[in-house]
C-alpha cells in the first residue's frame, strides 16, 4: 500500500485497485483501505474527492429495470427447458436454421414485400387528410383554433406546442400500433416538439412530404398546406429527415440508426415542394445550445482565433471550418456577449480580414491570415 503515500488526485482516479475498491468493494479491500486511511489521515480529503469522481463519471447506460431483466432471464431458462424436453438426439442446427425461424423469416419477407408493393402503389397520399385517413389505427385529432399556441402532453411524456391554425393527429395509444416500436403523429401547420427520449421507440412526424425521425429531442416542424416549403429546425439533439417520396423511405424509417438528412441543433431542413428538393442550412437565428457544462462566455483577450471559433462551435453546436495554420496567427481581443451568432462572426471576420459563408449547415471561414500585418 505504500505506493499510495504520494499519490495525486489524478493517480487515484485512474488507479485500478482504487477504482475496484470504490466500484465493487469487498470486505477485504475495504479493510485494507480503511486501515491505510487511518494511518494516513492527511490523504482522507483527497481520497474522498477521488472517490466522488470515480463514482460520478460513468458510461451512460440505458437502464434495464429489474422486472424486464427478470422476464428476459426467465425466458432463457424456459426456452432451455422446452429444448431439453424435445429429444436431445436431434442434430443442433444454428438458431437461424430452425424451421420456425425460417417460416417466420419467410412470413416477414412476404409481409415486407407486400407492404412495399402497397406503398408503391398507393395513390400519392401526401396531404395531411389523406395521410391520416391512410392509417389504420384509431387517431385523435387536436386543432388549435385559438390565437395562442396550444401545448399538448402525450402519454409518453412528450410535449407538443401547436401554433394557431395548426392541427395534429396522434394515435390514442402508442402501443396500439403495429410492432409497438414506433410513435407516429401527423401534422398540418407549425408545431414545436419536445420528445421524451426512448431509443427503442423512435418518434416520427409526418408533415406532408417530409418525414422526421427522432429518438428524443426538441425541434420545430412547419408545414402549412398552402405554403411552398416544408421545414424542420432542430433545437436540441439530432433528427433525421427524409422525403416520403424517397424510394428508400421505408428502410430509412425502419433503420435503427438515424439515416436520411441528419440535422443537429441550429440547423434546419427545407423541402421545396415544387422542385422536390431537400436543402440543409442553418436556422436564421442560431441560439446557444443548452449545455450541461458551464455557461459559455465570449470574452477574449489576445486569444488565438481558434479559441474563439472553438467557443462558438461549442456554444452553438455548429461546425466552423477554417484553416487553423493560417488563421491562428490572428489574435482576438473582443467581448462578444449579447450578440447574435452572425454579428459575432461579422466582427471576428472583420478583425482578421476574413469572410464567412454558411454552407450545408456549417460555417466556412476563409481568410489570408495575419502574417503580413
Amino acid at each position, binding site marked *: *500500500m*505504500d*505506493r499510495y503515500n504520494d499519490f495525486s*488526485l*489524478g493517480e487515484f*482516479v*485512474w488507479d*485500478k*485497485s482504487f*477504482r*475496484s*475498491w470504490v*466500484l*465493487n468493494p*469487498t470486505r*477485504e*479491500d475495504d479493510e*485494507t483501505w480503511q486501515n491505510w486511511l487511518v494511518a494516513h489521515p492527511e490523504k482522507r480529503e483527497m481520497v474522498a*474527492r477521488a472517490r*466522488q*469522481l470515480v*463514482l*460520478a*463519471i*460513468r*458510461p*451512460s*447506460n*440505458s437502464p*434495464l429495470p429489474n422486472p424486464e*431483466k427478470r422476464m*428476459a*432471464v426467465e*425466458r*432463457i*431458462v424456459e*426456452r*432451455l*427447458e422446452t*429444448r431439453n424436453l424435445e429429444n436431445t438426439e436431434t442434430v*443442433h442446427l444454428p*438458431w437461424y436454421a430452425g424451421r420456425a425461424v425460417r417460416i417466420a423469416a419467410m412470413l416477414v419477407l412476404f409481409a415486407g414485400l407486400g407492404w412495399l408493393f402497397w406503398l408503391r402503389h398507393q395513390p400519392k397520399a401526401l396531404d395531411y387528410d389523406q395521410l391520416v385517413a391512410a392509417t389504420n389505427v384509431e387517431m385523435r385529432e387536436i386543432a388549435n383554433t385559438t390565437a395562442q399556441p396550444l401545448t399538448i402532453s402525450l402519454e409518453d411524456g412528450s410535449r407538443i406546442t401547436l401554433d394557431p391554425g395548426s392541427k395534429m393527429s396522434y394515435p390514442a395509444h402508442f402501443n396500439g400500433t403495429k410492432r409497438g416500436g414506433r410513435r407516429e403523429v401527423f401534422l398540418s401547420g407549425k408545431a414545436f416538439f419536445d420528445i421524451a427520449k426512448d*431509443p*427503442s421507440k423512435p418518434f416520427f412526424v409526418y408533415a406532408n412530404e417530409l418525414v422526421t425521425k427522432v*429518438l428524443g429531442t426538441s425541434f420545430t416542424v412547419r408545414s402549412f398546406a398552402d405554403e411552398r416549403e416544408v421545414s424542420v429546425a432542430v433545437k436540441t439533439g439530432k433528427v433525421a429527415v427524409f422525403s416520403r417520396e424517397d424510394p*428508400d423511405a421505408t*428502410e*430509412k424509417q425502419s*433503420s*435503427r*440508426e438515424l*439515416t436520411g438528412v441528419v440535422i443537429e441543433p441550429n440547423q434546419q431542413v427545407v423541402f421545396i415542394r415544387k422542385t422536390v428538393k431537400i436543402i440543409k442550412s442553418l436556422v436564421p437565428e442560431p441560439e446557444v445550445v443548452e449545455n*450541461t*457544462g*458551464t455557461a459559455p462566455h465570449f470574452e477574449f483577450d489576445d486569444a488565438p482565433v481558434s479559441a474563439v471559433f472553438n467557443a462558438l462551435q461549442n456554444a452553438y453546436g455548429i461546425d466552423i471550418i477554417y484553416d487553423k495554420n493560417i488563421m491562428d496567427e490572428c489574435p482576438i481581443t473582443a467581448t462578444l456577449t449579447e450578440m447574435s451568432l452572425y454579428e459575432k462572426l461579422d466582427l471576428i471576420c472583420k478583425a482578421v480580414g476574413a469572410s464567412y459563408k454558411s454552407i450545408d449547415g456549417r460555417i466556412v471561414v476563409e481568410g489570408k491570415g495575419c502574417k503580413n500585418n
Partner: protein
Amino acid sequence: MKALTRSDLYFEEEQKLWREMLAGDVTAYEHLINRTYDLLFHYGTKFNSDRELIKDCIQDVFLGVWEKRDALNHEIPPKPYLLASLRRRLHRLASRLRMDCMDYYNESDIVFDLEFSAEYQLIESENDRLLASRMTEMLNELPKRQKEAVFLRFYNDMEREEIAMVMDIQPQSVSNLLQEAFKFIKSHWKTIISVVLALPF
C-alpha cells in the same frame, strides 16, 4: 506490501458457477445468467440501440453456451467469454443487415459507441464538478476502440488477456490501446487541472 488485486472472491464464484453449469446444473446456469445479464445488456447497448434485439442476442448466447457445454473449456473466464460471444453475434447480425439494406448500414453501425456522463449530485465541491465535466468531455473524445478498452478495464475490472478475448485482438494490441488512451488522459489531465485551479472560486 500487498498489491490490491481484484476481488478474487467474485471471480472464483463465477468460475464455480461456470463449472457447475458446464456439468449440467440448471440452477447454476440461472445464477450465472442473473449475475452477468446487466453487464451483457449494457455492453450490447453500446453497439446497438435496439433493446429487444440485444435481449434476443443474449438469449442466443446463453442457449448456445448450454448446447455446447460438453465442448467448452472449464477454465475459460465466463464474463469475457460471454461478452465476446455477444459482440460476435451483434457484429454478425449487423453485417447481415448491412448486406440486406445495401449502404444504409455502414461500418460505423457496428462500432462500440459509448458516452460518458457525470452525475454532479454525487460531487460536493463546485471545483470538482467542473473537473468532472472536463474529464467527461475528455473521455468522450477518446477514439472508439480506446474507449472500449478503457470501459472494459476501468469500469469492468478486466485484465489485459480478458479484454483481448472480448475485443478479439492480441493482448499486445490491448496494451497499445490502453497506453494510447492513457497518454491522452494524462496529457489532458494536466491542462484540465491547471485550468480548473486557475479559475477564481
